[in-house]
């Protein structure tokens, strides 16, 4: 971006800064893999780098898999259903808010936006917990699913509404003349055009649900119902620490996210930039 002809001397500090930051960003990732192949003794002796491959403890991964597979299944079910339900609500609402003017529209729109500026504190967790309890959903994944699909809609609605407003009206009108219903207009006009934005919103929501610790921590009790963060937390707390197995467990817990990112990375980088510029 610099307009002057780049000199080697001028560029070096920039690379140095970026590489320094990236090193620390990736270091936990490296440590995780490195230690996941070690026994406690090997970790004690050499925490810095991989040992010779012949001494790798592959069985750490097997043990860890048996521990966390249940948690992962729970997390995937929770996250997928929450994101699906949440996205349906986000799309429907932002479609209506972006396209129509009617009585009560502003109240609803500002009501939705305002709740973003009413931050939840730990006290909200208290009342939310008792709400879930009175609905009889304590110690059930459904409690988590319903709450998380309702939460985190605001940012999605905010971004998507602006995006739909920018879609030329003629597209909707011509669909209308063809007799398309609301749902049909959404599937034929909105969805194809807003792919990358939708993907970004969905990924952010997925990450939010996947990383949610507090709600599952207070709502879920039984070991077979825990989601991955609470499961890992329990593992870290109760286990006589087997570092290799723990780190392998952490790595396995990250794999679903890796897979998701592999498929959506391109959209995500694009959508993040677009959304950030608008917001």
């Amino acid at each position, binding site marked *: 971006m610099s307009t002057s002809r780049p000199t080697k001397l*001028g560029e070096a500090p920039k690379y140095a800064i970026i590489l320094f930051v990236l090193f620390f960003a990736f270091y936990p990732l490296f440590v995780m893999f490195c230690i996941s192949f070690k026994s406690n003794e090997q970790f004690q002796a050499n925490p810095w780098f991989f040992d010779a491959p012949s001494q790798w403890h592959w069985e750490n991964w097997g043990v860890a898999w048996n521990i966390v597979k249940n948690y992962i299944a729970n997390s995937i079910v929770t996250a997928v259903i929450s994101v699906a339900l949440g996205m349906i609500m986000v799309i429907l609402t932002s479609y*209506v808010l972006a396209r129509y003017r009617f*009585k009560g529209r502003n109240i609803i729109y500002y009501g939705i936006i305002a709740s973003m500026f009413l931050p939840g504190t*730990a006290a909200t967790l*208290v*009342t939310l917990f008792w709400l879930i309890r009175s609905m009889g959903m304590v110690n059930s994944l459904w409690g988590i699913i319903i709450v998380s699909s*309702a939460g985190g809609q605001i940012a999605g609605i905010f971004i998507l509404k602006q995006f739909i407003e920018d879609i030329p009206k003629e597209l909707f009108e011509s669909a209308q003349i063809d007799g398309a219903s609301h749902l049909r207009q959404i599937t034929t006009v909105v969805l194809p055009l807003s792919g990358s934005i939708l993907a970004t919103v969905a990924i952010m929501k997925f990450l939010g649900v996947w990383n949610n610790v507090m709600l599952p921590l207070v709502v879920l009790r039984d070991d077979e119902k825990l989601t*991955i963060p609470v499961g890992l937390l329990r593992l870290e707390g109760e286990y006589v620490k087997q570092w290799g197995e723990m780190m392998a467990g952490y790595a396995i*817990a990250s794999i679903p996210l890796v897979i998701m990112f592999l498929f959506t990375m391109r959209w995500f980088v694009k959508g993040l930039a677009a959304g950030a510029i608008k917001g």
Partner: protein
Amino acid sequence: MTQTAIKTTPTAPGSSNSKFTLPRILARVKTVSLLYLLMFPTIVSMLVFSYYPKLDVVIKAFYRWEPGQIEEFIGLKNFQDALADPLFWNSFQLVVILLVANLIKMWPGIITAIALHRLASDRWRYIFQVAFVIPMVIPGLVWLLIWKSFYEPDFGILNRFLTLTGGMDLLSWLDGTKELPGVMPNIATSLAPIINGPVTTLFSSVWGMLTFGAVVMTCAARSVEPIANLRRAVLTVGLAVCTYLLVKTNVQGNSMGAILAFVGVVLFVISIARSSGPSWLLWCLWMLAGIWTCQERLYMLPVLVLVAEVLNFAVRKMTNTIAAKDIVKWVGLASVIIGCLFVAFGKIWVTSTGQFEFGSPAWLGNKDLVLPAIIFWGFPWVGTVGVLIYLSGLQQISTDVYEAAELDGVGPIRRVFSIELPLIMTQVRINLIFMTIGTLTAYEFFLILLGAAGGPGNKGMVPGLYMYQQAFLQGKFGYACALGMVLFMLVLLLTVIYQRYVKVEK
């Protein structure tokens, strides 16, 4: 609904002459109710899971609520207890320290984004940009637990690294032993007479010195209007007297007085914000004022403001306005710097921790080391998403601006302050708001790291964690709700102030 529904985008074909024929009205009703039907899930879920719990907090704050056993209306009792609860107020002291730390921790992100933006090679920028997204695949909790493992006393990488590089010996040398204090405790001891002597006499404590410096600097940063100055002075003196009296009554156990004092403080902060305009320095002032609040010397704050005003006024009288501005600015900066040095060397490492001599300090298990460990956490404090957001702001800067700057001979460092920073102020401001709210309400991190009691000696007890502990461990749910209300009011106040006074200078 029927009449205004006519504004709806026309959908019904075959328009009639009159607006109010029955079929037409029915058509509108049908259209609009269909729209509401589409939004129904969102509306209901927002009401039930977002608004209801928050509203319930407000209601339950007035109850003694221990579910299953007792639920009775007790009026303001919870709030009175909250204001008199030392643990709750101490937790705000920690928040203030963390806010200051986070304010500093924002900079590496901005610097990284600028470095990324200025790279000559577009290809490398894209590669780095993608690389910055990759660490997001680690779930937040895993990242937290891995960092926690770094701090382990025996296995942890941090202690190993320190031992390997000799950092541990250095720390041990600085720390010394209980019998024979090392360098840092010795410096603290030798500074003690100055801090307890002249500094305390003049400024009431080191924090007072910092606040004084910040106030003076804000004075220098703003324009001169005699009437505004007078108003400010009157306001300041009035509030000084009033808060002094109220704090006095609070000490005697009068909790209504405490509530009024709290209102007084809020008014004071708002009046300062109004009179000072958009200034970065103000944030130091507020944060330090917060520390002060916790030190129970609140009444000295307006006095210092008054002194700073007088100083500003006097210097302006002696020289011309522009020279005065510089002089006042430097006076303020000097007292902030000296104050910081006093805090760093005279207040923090006062006694020997005795943790380093055996080479395995328990960073999260010792009451003196918890705070440094939390502040160092996540080094070098670059949130990768934050960098990308800053970058997208930076990329909107047109190259003309750079060309103009180059013609004027603006160096690379000055370009940061004269071009890049002003142009990403929107993003910085958004980040600032979220950072402040986040720091005030955070508790997950501390719960996972230190447990519900906030670690050794309650050193890591933030307000949110205290709330959690009161509710889920002590069973005082109503009290937790009242604490939540207090915290919520603070957050709301800060948000409003940010929105109104931290303006974007274009």
